[in-house]
């Protein structure tokens, strides 16, 4: 198991945390997620008046003693869940030096999350996508399923533009039942395309979590002097006096982040912003439960 991509230390520190879906799901095996089916489970949900056909062992006899009426206890069932990690491998993700490279950070985040999810009994699949192609690993459970994910992540070649729609449709073909989609990207794409993608996911009743990864240079724009910038995904280039444009640029980036946050709020998605020079522990804690 590669220590380079998989952050074992972070995984160890997050041992007591669980990653749960927000809505109830139709799971196949027992797990930690709320099942659509009520059943026998340690987690009490509600009381219901006894009807014919209800199991007698579910009757709360103490309540009967106080109220002289029969109530049965209803419990939540907990099942396992499928996770689909969609990792952006477009050229723009290959920005930053070693230690702050966006793609390296995203790979580490994806691998560590996949490991933790597999360990809590969920099945995890991976899709590495760009405008040129997408490579999919179908969801599998069991600790050993981490190996193909890590292998795939290690062999990613950054290329192409950020295009989400096509790989998303391919993934939805595979994840027909309940699943949570985790999108790891810089989302440097047309906002409308992202909006449509989120709309599609929510329409398919999928929980969605966005990890928005940006490099400090992109958020703080710490350049000096006059610089000619070449776009990493297109032929666009621009010469700017960094000092004079800094303020406006930062304002633009903040507006972009706010737009993503609003979009996620609108579609009830979880949005986690993270810098590529941070530890993967921080964004993972944001979506974890104790």
């Amino acid at each position, binding site marked *: 198991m590669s220590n380079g991509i998989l952050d074992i230390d972070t995984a160890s520190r997050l041992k007591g945390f669980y990653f749960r879906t927000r809505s109830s799901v139709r799971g196949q095996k027992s797990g930690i997620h709320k099942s659509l089916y009520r059943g026998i489970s340690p987690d009490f949900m509600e009381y219901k008046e006894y009807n014919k056909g209800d199991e007698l062992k579910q009757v709360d006899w103490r309540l009967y003693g106080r109220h002289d009426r029969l109530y049965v206890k209803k419990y939540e069932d907990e099942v396992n869940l499928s996770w689909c990690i969609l990792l952006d491998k477009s050229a723009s993700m290959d920005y930053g030096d070693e230690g702050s490279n966006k793609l390296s950070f995203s790979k580490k985040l994806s691998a560590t999350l996949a490991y933790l999810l597999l360990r809590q009994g969920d099945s995890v699949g991976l899709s590495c996508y760009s405008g040129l192609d997408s490579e999919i690993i179908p969801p599998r459970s069991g600790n050993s399923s981490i190996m193909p994910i890590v292998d795939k992540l290690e062999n990613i070649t950054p290329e192409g533009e950020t295009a989400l729609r096509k790989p998303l449709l391919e993934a939805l073909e595979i994840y027909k039942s309940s699943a949570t989609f985790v999108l790891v990207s810089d989302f440097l794409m047309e906002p409308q395309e992202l909006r449509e993608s989120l709309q599609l996911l929510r329409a398919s009743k999928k929980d969605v979590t966005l990890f928005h990864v940006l*490099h400090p240079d992109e958020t703080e724009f710490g350049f000096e002097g006059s610089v000619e910038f070449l776009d990493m995904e297109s032929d666009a280039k621009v010469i700017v006096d960094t000092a004079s444009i800094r303020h406006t640029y930062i304002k633009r980036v903040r507006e972009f982040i706010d737009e993503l946050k609003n979009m996620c709020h609108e579609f009830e998605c979880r949005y986690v912003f993270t810098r590529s020079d941070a530890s993967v522990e921080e964004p993972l804690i944001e979506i974890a439960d104790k």
Partner: protein
Amino acid sequence: MNFSFLSPIFLIGLIAVSLPVIAHLISRKSGFQKRFPAVRFLLASQGEMATRSRLKDLILLLLRALIIVIIALLFAKPAIFSFSRADSSEPRTLAVVIDNSFSMGYGDNFNNAKEEAVRLIDSAPDGSFFTALPLVPERGEAISVIQNRASAKKDLKQIPLSQTFTDNERRLEQVYSALEKAPNQDKEVVLVTDFQKNGWKSEEFTRTWLRLIDISDAESPWNRAVTDVESRYTKESIKVKVKASNFSASEASELLTEAKLSGEEIKAYIDIAPGDFTTEEFIFPRAQKNEEPEASGSASIPEDELRIDDTRRFVLSRSGALNVLIVDGDPREDSRLSESYYLASAAETASELLRSRIRIKDNESFLDEDLSAYDLIFLTNVGEITPGKAAELEEYIERGGTTVIFSGDRVRAASYNALLKNILPGELGAPTQKDSTLISVKTDMFSEELFEKIGQTTVNRSFTLIPAQGAETVLKLSDETPFLSYFGYGEGNVFLFTSTADTSWGNFAITPVFAPVIKEFLDFESLSNTKRRNYVVGDKVRIDRLPSASSIAVKDPSGENLKIEPEQAVFEDTELTGIYKVLIDGDRAYEFSVNLDPLESNLEKLDVLSIESEPGSELGLVKVFKELWRYFLWGVIALFISESVARALFS
């Protein structure tokens, strides 16, 4: 009102205005390349900022270019000037400075200057304060500012024409600073001058508080002067070399030049090309008997408009009374048996002709004697020389002294070789017995008659000598060993006899050649050791005196007796031209001359300050400058602040 730059050379700095433009263009064209993911935001930001950015860049570019322009103009000293007669109605403090350097003696310049100065004082508004000062200050001058017009004019009229010049710029600054405490705010220094170049370090000297008035009445004044005189003794004559200069644009032909010396007069006609000089040599025969040790004379050309530099005086020194020290290394009670007996007798005989002062000291006294007071030192059989004395003797010779050394049985060769190795004509060996006669090698030192008699000398004992490099053998013995050797060290001379000055090692001292040889030494020293006797105005004169002199006075050309400290023996009051007489202990010792510095004889005028060619520059009108640099300085500061504020606002 006209605009001008006082240092226009600095306008070349305007080229630097292209620097921010070039920097601006370069910054827009290049810069290092960077691959970046979020170029879309940059493009969006740039589009929004484009117009504002261009305006900002243009404003900053203009401000920076303007800063460079103003700095260049600041260094070029912008000034406005006008021609005026200085008749402002506001009371002010006026310092009228009369150029009294000796060039102002040309024609009526000095009187005209005083009249113009009087007019300036008269035309000043009531309530004004005045001071009237010479450009060349008098010794112990005190500058006082007064309100009394009549008193100022009286001071003005008493200003004498100087025989020298000064650093005009420093003097004017000094006068202005003296006005600092004067009551009126408006302070002005007016210099009435002939605009002669000498005395000005810079031809562009201008001050806001200074007005210059050109008083010279000739457009291109011409002058001829005796600018130098050199005189020297030869054996048969006295040569006087006169340098006459022509400071005009026309040739001086058949200029009658006279040289006078001790009542004799020689005339010659010389031609001098324009702006050039001619040197004429005048030869006066020597009176061989009863000749004065010093003679004074003069050289002159016909008088012109500037008379003061047409005559130059000089004093010819033949060293006067030669101070001779004889050190007897083997003195006896019976002086006839002393080592120096024959030497002293010969020297005294010769000194009757040469007016020498002879002192005889024994070896012990010699060690305490100050050698610098002597022109010639004889060491006869001196056995004891300390290292300190040897060093003093070496320094004495290096500075031009002459020493004659006679050997003897007290002389220790090893000691001499160790202590006096730098000055001896060679390395002394052991004394050897012999029976030799004397022969001359260097005959030009002695006359033909003397040479014939030299052969009568027999020597039966002498030191061997290995000659040093550069040493010459003057007399040698028949066994080819040196008898008299010469060595020049520094500016001085050393003669070494390998035998004695008495009769113990030979008969040299009692032969007929001994006294003439000793006289040759005195003559040699007398001819070669002429003293400096000619100075220019302002020079400090070091008085030659014996250490025992108790009082020294100098009588200047006006007849005034000026006492000086015997310890210092330096005379500084050389402000008058002419012959000065030095009196030591009340006796007339010698004379020296003081002449003009010939620099002032060239009446060429300043180019830049001259207002002759300017419009409206008729006599009496002056160019009044008002420097504007302060305003430009404030402008630069304001622009710097504006640039900083603009940069802060735009960033």
